[in-house]
């Protein structure tokens, strides 16, 4: 929990800083937008966390977001290129595809003992290609579905502030939090991530549990994809590119270890918040100053810094974590006694006489 709390402090400090530099940060418009972004990435990241806790990895979720969005638009959009079927049909079909692909990936990884990195990399590329085939290089307008992402459950002065997507996210958080932390299934995930062999020797149905994590990951990617298609209202072949990396980064920031066995839903929420506040909040950051002539000016960080900052934050987080870990381990090992070493001497530098070892044969 140490890592999660540290990240929570970082997130709060970051938000305070942004608020201080620019009051619009807490404006209804920004809060609404950022919380929509956090909800969608959060759903995706929690899905990835299930896999990461077992020590696996799922690189296909970004392409899955794109594919489910494209399928939904293709089936249900009334605009050109869409088939104009009812929305529920599109959603069911998209979700069905997502779950089926998750199952196939899970079975390939567990039954054939393939490496998750390779299997999900293959699916990442394949699914991207399928999306491209469906939109055929163009795009499908899907503005009719914007109501989901734009819906608000709370308005202040007539301005929406709490998106409906936040409720979706909350539901995912509650269900996942229950699954990961309060069920036998969740315990099995941590046991597998901690020591796969020992879990198997303790009778944990390792393969079945692992397979389920890939289904969950793909399913939540499907949910995120449906939300995303409503948010951008125009699906093309590049939707969801590199989302898997954002999701993994959010997990790692939130305290998941890619070696497995570590991570909490709470941490993933914090990690997601950090990712999105940095990504979307950076352009709100400004510093007021008066130039030589006494006129008020604003300094903005360059927008291109976004990924530099995110990358640096991830690295600093894992480095700090490891340093704390090493210091603790050191203390534990040394106990209280400090080592007392005599001054370093050395061996007289004179090799023994060249041995003549008899060759037997």
């Amino acid at each position, binding site marked *: 929990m140490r890592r999660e709390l540290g990240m929570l402090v970082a997130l709060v400090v970051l938000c305070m800083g942004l608020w201080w530099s620019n009051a619009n940060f807490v404006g209804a418009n920004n809060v609404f937008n950022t919380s929509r972004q956090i909800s969608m990435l959060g759903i995706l990241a929690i899905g990835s966390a299930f896999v990461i806790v077992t020590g696996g990895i799922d690189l296909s979720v970004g392409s899955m977001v794109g594919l489910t969005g494209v399928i939904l638009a293709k089936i249900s959009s009334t605009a050109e290129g869409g088939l104009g079927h009812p929305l529920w049909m599109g959603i069911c079909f998209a979700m069905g595809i997502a779950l089926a692909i998750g199952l196939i990936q899970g079975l390939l990884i567990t039954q054939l003992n393939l490496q998750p990195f390779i299997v999900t990399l293959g699916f990442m590329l394949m699914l991207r290609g399928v999306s491209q085939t469906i939109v055929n290089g163009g795009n499908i307008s899907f503005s009719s579905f914007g109501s989901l992402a734009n819906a608000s459950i709370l308005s202040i002065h007539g301005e929406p502030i709490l998106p409906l997507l936040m409720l979706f996210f909350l539901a995912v958080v509650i269900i996942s939090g229950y699954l990961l*932390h*309060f*069920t*036998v*299934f*969740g*315990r099995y995930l*941590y*046991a597998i991530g*901690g*020591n796969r*062999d*020992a*879990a*198997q*020797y*303790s*009778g*944990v*149905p390792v393969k079945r549990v692992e397979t389920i994590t890939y289904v969950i990951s793909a399913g939540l990617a499907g949910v995120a994809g449906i939300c995303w298609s409503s948010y951008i209202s125009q699906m093309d072949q590049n939707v969801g590119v590199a989302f898997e990396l954002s999701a993994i980064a959010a997990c790692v920031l939130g305290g998941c270890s890619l070696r497995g*066995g*570590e991570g909490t839903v709470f941490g993933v929420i914090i990690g997601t918040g950090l990712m999105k506040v940095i990504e979307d909040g950076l352009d709100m950051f400004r510093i007021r100053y008066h130039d030589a002539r006494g006129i008020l000016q604003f300094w903005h960080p360059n927008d291109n810094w976004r990924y530099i900052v995110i990358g640096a934050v991830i690295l600093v987080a894992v480095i700090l974590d490891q340093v704390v870990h090493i210091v603790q381990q050191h203390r*534990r*090992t*040394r*106990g209280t*006694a400090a*080592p*007392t*070493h*005599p*001054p*370093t*001497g*050395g*061996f*007289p530098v004179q*090799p*023994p*006489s*060249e*041995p*003549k*070892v*008899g*060759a*037997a*044969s």
Partner: protein
Amino acid sequence: MLNPHPTLLAMRGITKRFPGVVALQDVSLTLGRGEVLALMGENGAGKSTLMKILGGAYQPDEGEIILGGNPTVLFNIAEAKRLGIALIHQELMLAGNLDIAGNIFLGNERAAGSSFGWLDRGGMNRRAAELLARVGLDLPPTTPVSRLTAGQMQMVEIAKALALQAHIIIMDEPTSSLTLGETRQLFKIIADLRATGMGIVYISHRMEEVLEVADRVTVLRDGRYVGDLSAQEATHEKIVSMMVGRPLSAWFPERPARAGGEVVLEAENLVVPGARAGVSFNVRRGEILGFAGLVGSGRTELMEVLFGAASARGGIMRLEGAPYLPSTTRDAISRGVYLAPEDRKRHGLVLPMSIAQNVSLPDIGNYPGGGAWLQRGAEVRVATQELERMRIKAPSVFRKVVNLSGGNQQKVVLGKWLAMRPKVLILDEPTRGIDVGAKAEIYRHMAALAAQGIAIIMVSSDMEEVLGMSDRVAVMRERRIERVLDRADATQERIASIMTGAEAA
């Protein structure tokens, strides 16, 4: 001083602590030029730790190391190597994907200029060929190491030490995977190295070898220095009594001879993976059935079949009269057959989890009233009960298993299974790497479990343990059971001759 050799190395007052254990307490050791020193002690006596300190892998918390008359700090492995100390590990540390020359010069490559300079393969191969000739290995230096036998690899390790111009070579169980011929060859080379003034520390459990090759024997017990014996003084009995510290009989709990309990588990013509023929045996209620055999005789493979971790190629098993053929560990566990595996860190425990979480892992899905919901209260209750029953030394059941000593870790593994009322408990090397006190405790637990009517199958490479604990001893060789001996007929010599194939079945 009983040591006629000029001193090459002296380690004085070495103390090393690990979380929860003192691995070495005030240990001293000397080694002379041209001397072969055998370092003896039970598993967990501290031999490896002491040698890792000498090899620079660990730093002592207290004590000094005097090398060639000068106090020295071996602050890392590279420094120890630079000062002429070569450590040959039991599991040989050779890179199978490289050739012989590549291994001999690994970490010490000859190259033009820096690490990024052109590798001087020709020069290395020539030098490697000279070194190979000196250790009597008649192979081109470009042979991939993956094609060598264990004995040939040992020679390559020695050549590697020679390449470093080592003054001191530490050999950790060098003969454990060698054939008799290869062992003879190794001894010849050791004699030649000794003649050139090199100091050799020889670690082995094989008493005959030690008596043959060593000039002096240093004995450790429970991380402490017990004493030295010269080659003239050393006898099998003396060394064992120094290693064990008390007569062997005091170790093993008295158990009434048990006969005629009903058969719990029986196997007929069970074919273990890799075997040509099947094995048949049975184990009764309240009985401890020991399995003796050399490493690789198929004991662990047989246990994995009994536990459902591997599949039999044929044959049948019955558990309490009903057909039993587990295809997964889960099947076996649901029938009450449990395994405490040989490599407990790899197969037995989830190290980053707590004692409670490890104890509950196999059974938590079946805790009453739970369903899917995790029963944390019941988990802590069960684990606390096992903590007390097994007398696990830990402040609470929330302690992570990784922080426990080997003996306490093994008790967690046992507690995990005892909480589930075993019918058959399979213990594969139950006391490997465990200190003496915990060992005796585990023996007492085994006796108590047998008295409760549990059938125990014990695999052990420790002959005293097999003889001290078993009601019957099954001796395996080449993946078959050669013979099942009753306790009365089982002697060390008898078992040894059966498992090495000297006595035909």
